């Protein structure tokens, strides 16, 4: 079973290798995928997917995610088909998601899909035998982002265990921080949630932490001192449209901006992550710091996605280690 979070699987597709969510993956599976990504980082260009067709169906546009997946497929020798604008597809003519998925299933070996509706990827995985990779379903799940975050943390810290992870900014709507929080639960993290009152971590995730014995501290101050103990500083966008109270937005909008002069007391190993695109929450003077890691983090997305595509196609870590198609 791949998507353990929905532990009662559909009867149709017990063999389906789709990746809809990784929130419930155990340590072993996570490590397996991290090891795969490590192999791909060492040798990102291969022909291991020669003859395969990867479909990227972006019912909702997301240029970054699509480019990353398509690059991953191309660098492994697969061909890519797909669409990115729903206006040019029959979805806008009223074709159901099921029909689109069924049609594309005739052509592709794996379907990477992004959709604005929550649960779309899970449903798609139930109507086809072609594996689905969820590239984001509304505000619900985005497992490849989580995987690249985990890989970035693992790579920079050498472990996922016992880390101080500081999440800053919009913790209410930030899907990436929620997914990361759940994926880290078995690694004994200590979270610091730094957010304005209106965008604080939702109750359900705090409850999740309590139920899973995850330590967390909430604070509103974002200063040189409050981040001194961080191993990972995970920054997110504070967007104007998220606020019901615009006075509140004006008051806090500059309070969650990271500047280079705030890094004086931070730990040597500390790395700054950000799901990108940034607006103004990380000053440009931070880019030159040794702690800045967000661009490398985006590149790690390539290796993480190479791993996910291979995993759903049944290509194992051993296959990748013994791969003779490296370019």
């Amino acid at each position, binding site marked *: 079973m791949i998507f353990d979070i929905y532990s009662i699987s559909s009867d149709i597709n017990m063999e389906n290798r789709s990746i809809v969510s990784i929130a419930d993956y155990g340590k072993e599976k996570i490590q397996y995928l991290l090891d795969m990504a490590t192999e791909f980082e060492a040798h990102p260009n291969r022909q291991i997917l020669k003859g395969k067709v990867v479909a990227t169906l972006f019912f909702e546009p997301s240029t970054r995610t699509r480019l990353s997946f398509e690059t991953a497929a191309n660098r492994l020798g697969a061909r890519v088909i797909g669409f990115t604008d729903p206006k040019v597809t029959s979805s806008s003519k009223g074709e159901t998601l*099921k029909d689109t998925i069924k049609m594309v299933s005739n052509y592709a070996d794996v379907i990477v899909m992004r*959709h604005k509706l929550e*649960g779309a990827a899970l449903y798609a995985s139930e109507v086809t035998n072609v594996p689905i990779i969820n590239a984001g379903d509304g505000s*619900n799940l985005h497992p490849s982002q989580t995987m690249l975050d985990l890989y970035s943390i693992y790579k920079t810290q050498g472990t996922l265990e016992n880390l101080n992870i500081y999440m800053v900014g919009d913790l209410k709507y930030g899907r990436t921080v929620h997914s990361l929080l759940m994926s880290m639960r078995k690694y004994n993290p200590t979270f610091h949630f730094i957010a304005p009152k209106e965008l604080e971590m939702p109750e359900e995730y705090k409850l999740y932490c309590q139920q899973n014995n995850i330590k967390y501290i909430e604070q509103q101050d974002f200063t040189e001192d409050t981040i001194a103990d961080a191993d990972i500083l995970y920054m997110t966008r504070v967007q104007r449209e998220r606020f019901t109270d615009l006075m509140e937005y004006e008051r806090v909008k500059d309070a969650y901006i990271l500047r280079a002069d705030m890094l004086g007391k931070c730990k040597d190993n500390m790395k700054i992550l950000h799901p990108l695109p940034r607006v103004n929450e990380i000053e440009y003077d931070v880019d030159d710091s040794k702690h800045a890691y967000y661009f490398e983090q985006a590149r790690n997305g390539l290796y993480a996605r190479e791993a996910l595509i291979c995993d759903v196609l049944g290509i194992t870590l051993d296959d990748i280690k013994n791969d003779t198609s490296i370019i």
Partner: protein
Amino acid sequence: MEQNKENMMVAALENGSVIDHIPTDKLFTVAQLLQLRDCKEEVVIANNLKSNVMNKKGLLKISGKFFNEEEISQLAVICPNIRLTVIKDYKVVEKREVLLPDTLTNIVKCANPVCITNNEPMKTVFYRKDKDTLKCRYCGKEQKLKDIKLK
């Protein structure tokens, strides 16, 4: 006394179903769900009956009606812990407490407007999380039983 009255009502039924232990404020919701207004068979609707278990209760007796599992699941969502008695030839052939099942397929509508189930011709699936919470299989959103809308 109550027992006798109840026995009389049940005994009067040749073939059909009795739904007992309905919360008084849910009685007419249940009657509507079962479309009793259009029912041509003999129907008894009783409310505010004294009960040992629940202070006051409602009761429905429907001649010629036998519920399938889907209807029973709907009943369970509207009011859990009701008691269903099936009568054939004046005899009680089945008596059971209707409990909320672990999985509800195509019974409940998801309250999340951006859930795929509200935008695609498909069955909904809900899991029982605890005694008064359901969770959508697709969007993962949880809903309280009291706020649930049937599909």
